[in-house]
């Protein structure tokens, strides 16, 4: 069991989200950086889809009420277990009474914590993910507050010592430019030639108006050749919509299931985890690829997770 000592209300219990309810308006939700949560789970011997914590507001402090093995992945954030400094992508044992503090990241935006056995919250519509927008799932349908106590399911694997992963993907920062791969979307051709060109040639800044629902960008004004009235249609995380302001919005984990704005492109699924780590104020550049490359990129990620699972399976 852990107890939350200090937190922001946007820190939440997440797994890999809901499937099969888009047609009744229930979105996927789940971890914004699915790769980081999956990795953390695998590091403590859990299946990749167990529930952990998504931390986006810092500092976050928690106390181990009972002994519990945990892993920390995602953003590169200074973290202390009592007075021991923990590197990123690190797994170790939290002993009863120890306090874990995670400070604002140096690179990246979201830290993930997985606990051996996974967080024990009720499964709702096939998932333990918190849907903050709709107010259900996760821990009491809300973000975490001070005093919350979270219990874990019994772990599957024995606890080995402390270890870390090296060579984990680079995290975006304010001084780097993050390249995000996209596929053109249904209304791509309806944008002016200049808009299509600038979409790819210019840098896009991640604005303050970024949350689990969407990421608003600022940059060149993207204009349609002529105004378009679209009927409501299904959309997915990764959809890049352009409202009349001409400033794009990327739908994220808690995307609405239906929208009406023209769509210029879709971020490929394999790059959504990277995108989720782009901090407010950082710069993005979009790169057009084709569907075969997009599918290959996803296969590559799946392969890396499988390899990690097998490699750790040998030692755990």
């Amino acid at each position, binding site marked *: 069991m852990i107890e939350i000592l200090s937190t922001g209300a946007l820190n939440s219990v997440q797994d890999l989200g809901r499937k*099969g309810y888009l*047609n*009744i*308006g229930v979105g996927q939700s789940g971890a914004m950086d699915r790769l980081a949560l999956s990795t953390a789970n695998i590091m403590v011997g859990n299946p990749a889809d167990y529930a952990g914590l998504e931390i986006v507001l810092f500092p976050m402090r928690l106390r181990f009420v009972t002994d519990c093995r945990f892993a920390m992945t995602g953003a590169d954030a200074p973290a202390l277990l009592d007075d021991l400094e923990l590197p990123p992508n690190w797994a170790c044992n939290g002993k009863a009474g120890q306090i874990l503090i995670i400070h604002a990241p140096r690179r990246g935006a979201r830290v993930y914590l997985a606990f051996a056995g996974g967080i024990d919250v009720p499964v709702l519509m096939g998932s333990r993910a918190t849907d903050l927008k*709709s107010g259900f799932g996760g821990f009491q349908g809300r973000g975490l507050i001070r005093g919350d106590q979270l219990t874990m399911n019994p772990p599957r694997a024995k606890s080995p010592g402390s270890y870390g992963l090296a060579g984990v993907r680079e995290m975006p920062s304010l001084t780097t430019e993050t390249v995000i791969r996209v596929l053109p979307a249904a209304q791509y051709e309806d944008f002016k030639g200049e808009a299509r060109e600038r979409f790819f040639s210019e840098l896009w800044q991640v604005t303050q108006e970024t949350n689990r629902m969407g990421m608003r960008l600022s940059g060149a004004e993207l204009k349609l050749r002529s105004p378009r009235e679209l009927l409501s249609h299904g959309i*997915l995380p990764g959809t890049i919509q352009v409202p009349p302001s001409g400033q794009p919005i990327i739908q994220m984990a808690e995307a609405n299931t239906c*929208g009406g704005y023209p769509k210029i492109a*879709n971020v490929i699924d394999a790059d959504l985890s990277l995108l989720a780590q782009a901090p407010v104020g950082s710069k993005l550049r979009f790169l057009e690829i084709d569907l075969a490359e997009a599918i290959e990129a*996803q296969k590559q990620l*799946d392969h890396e997770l499988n390899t990690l699972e097998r490699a750790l399976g040998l030692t755990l």
Partner: protein
Amino acid sequence: MSSLDPMPKICIAGSQGLFLDAASAGFSEPVQQRVLATANLMTQLPGVREVVPGMNNLLVVYSPSDTSVGALMEQLFHAWSHATVNEQVGREIDVPVIYGGHQGEDLAVIAELAKMDVQTFIRLHSEALYQVACVGAMPGFPYLSGLNPKLATPRRSVPRMRLEEGAIIIGGTQAGIMPCSAPSGWHVIGRTELKLFDQQRESPSFLQPGDRIRFSIAGIES
């Protein structure tokens, strides 16, 4: 398939989605029936994860490791051309409404905009048979077609920060019912006690695409 139906466009919607767009000028009820019938066929195919009907369009979410986009695109065209349109697939549901009052505060104003008295407005709203074209935007929210065109009212220029759960609403040419309390730019003309969404129910959304709705007058408040 009748010759009046437009041939849909199908395009890629990201690395796991296909989007079928059958919309021409304005919403068409017969096209929507075909969208729903196509959705039913597509849900049964291997590799298809989710099928999301929109207004005269359809999003198919698939798993690229279980099917190929080329095969799925062909299956989607085939399903569209061969779908058996059955207008009676859904249920017919009565939704009791208390019109007007505090929770229907726009009724008098939009009746005046429609150049009719409140009684006539309520009669036209409750006489029509509505179709649940699709469910989305928020959990359990039905997009209803079938609103009498005389009652159509452009959305508010400034959305309200909060409409209550159960609000009976009109936005443009569409009718709706709020499944939860949320911001909205639609006009509110009454309320219902019917619970549209309950995450604890086995089938959380009370209404499904294809259902037909009638609003009955449970009361009128001034």
